[in-house]
């Protein structure tokens, strides 16, 4: 809690570290629940049989985002400038 803040501190559900832990566990459970049905159903594929593998879209989404984050991180080294870049 920041004691300097004169206003009454709003202490909410999210501020308890315990709840964040619960939220994380809930999130992992949801992720698992989303992939499990794939093992028990026939999935259609559009271009390649790989798409019918269980958890393909989960894997695809995860990898796509990791790649996007890494690429933008790398580009960031070249593209990020100080905020007054154009004023100098």
């Amino acid at each position, binding site marked *: 809690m920041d004691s300097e803040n004169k206003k009454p501190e709003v202490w909410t559900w*999210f501020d308890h570290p315990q709840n964040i832990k619960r939220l994380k566990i809930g999130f992992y459970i949801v*992720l698992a629940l989303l992939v499990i049905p794939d093992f028990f159903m026939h999935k259609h594929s559009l271009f390649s049989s790989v798409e019918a593998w269980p958890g393909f879209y*989960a894997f695809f*989404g*995860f990898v796509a985002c990791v790649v996007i984050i890494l690429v933008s991180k790398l580009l960031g080294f070249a*593209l990020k*400038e*100080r905020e007054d*870049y154009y004023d100098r």
Partner: protein
Amino acid sequence: MIASLHPILLFFAGALLLWVLPLRGRQALILLVPAAAFATITQLPHGTFYGYELFGFDLTLLRVDKLSKAFGYIFTINAFACFLFALHLKNRYEHTAALAYIGAALGAVFAGDLISLYLFWEVMAITSTFLVLARKTQRAYGAAFRYVMVHIFGGLCLLAGILLQVNATGSVAFDGFSLEGLPTYLILIGFLVNAAAPPMNAWLSDAYPEATVTGGVIMTAYTTKTAVYTLIRGFAGCEILMFVGCTMAVYGIIWAILENDMRRILAYSIMNQVGFMICGIGIGTAMALNGAVSHAFAHIIYKALLWMSAGAVLYLTGKSKCTDLGGLYKTMPLTMIFGTIGALAISSFPFLSGYTTKPMIIYAGVNEGLFWVWLILEIASAGVFLHAGIKFPYFVFFAKDNGLRPGEPPKHMLVAMAFLSFVCIFIGVYPQPLYDILPFGAVDYHAYTFEHTLNQFQLLMFSALAFFMLLPLLKRTETISIDTDWFYRKGGKLFYFGCDKIFNGINDFAARVFGQTVPSQLTRFFSDPSRNVQKYLVQMAAEATGDDSQVKRRNKEIDHRTKAQAYPIGGGVFLAVIFLAIMSILYFI
């Protein structure tokens, strides 16, 4: 023949009426105008009306078909919500610009020929600039200047294209073009500048975040979506647009991830979403075009919603950088909920509007066997969730608590956001009314199969996993990112610097030589020409013979003679003789 009221008349009349009405009247007016325009558009019969003649061409101001009507609906619905959001504004200036801007956008959508289209196109560019200028900061003035310059460039491309096209074909008709030859390429470039396609994309992320709180909300819908409309009308099925669209979809994501300013993040996500639409236009099948129109419809709604929630935060805290924000869910829970609904809708989360529209475009690409389009658009779909779906709400409303305790925005803002949230959910759950107004045939697309919904949930939730696992890499920094505006911002400075050095250098040199050196030497010479000429000759003779022992003595004699004025003739006559001699020599040569 006038069959019915032209909806743009309501907007332009409203823009004028604003200046005579008191505050209450103005508030009623800005809500009445879009509502009345919406009602008018529902009643418009198909056909062309409001014909007029200009430059010997028969032009039409009102072409009504399903395509123009679909854009008319969404433009007026969104205008209503935006004006509701902007109800607190007391000044007439911003509302006038907004009404004229939206009126011009509608005018461009309903324009039946190229010349009318061009006229509204330019009015849009000018009126929207005032929404940026109204922010009244130095940065906004700069951004507005660059914004209008880029649009003038785009407008000139369009004008040149139209003139060449009219010259070549003799027709001002605005229908599907086949992309061949300079005229159609110029028209395409003109459209693409307004669609924020790279490399002419930076005006969007430059100007929109510098606009006023309400101006930004209004601008997000019209310029780019008018461009989408014109591309559907003019260049459907044009393959190059698939590449442009895919590039935009990915470009928008990467730059949005790098960005720190929340409204700039949202500006880049406009580019990303318009990329999906343009890709659909490039695919060009009925389903792809229906997908593009429906996605434009859904996009306008959730994008306005996102900009409203960001606008409410900016309005109350005066801050828009993610590094300054965070923890706002504590005192702005409603704004957070509405913003999150918009964020999930843009990510095409099932049961929200993006899910019933965007996959239609991807599915149309799959039907055509376009593997690369499918791959890139699926990657971009995951990326949308990353930058707009999670990043925006997470860094603004959660993340690190920066101690800001602003409270909720005024009621009318909350009502506007609630209205748009409702539309997002409505289209997501029950898309049939939207599918019914789509112009390119009946929609044969079912969003809610178990498999597709499951796939989408997997895609999105594992994107979320990637976000939270790589959160340290996504930490916000107080930086800006270089975009293509670098070329004209730094290039402009370089040009200025170069011109300064070259032309001012020439100027300085000329001033030194002709203003100081030459006149002073001439003055010295003409102060006593006969003496100076003699001395010069003596000097020359001495140098020629290599004997300068006599020079001093001769000079003394010359000085003495001059002082005593011991010449039979005056200096003037002496000079005249010399000049006459030179002239006669020149003449005889």
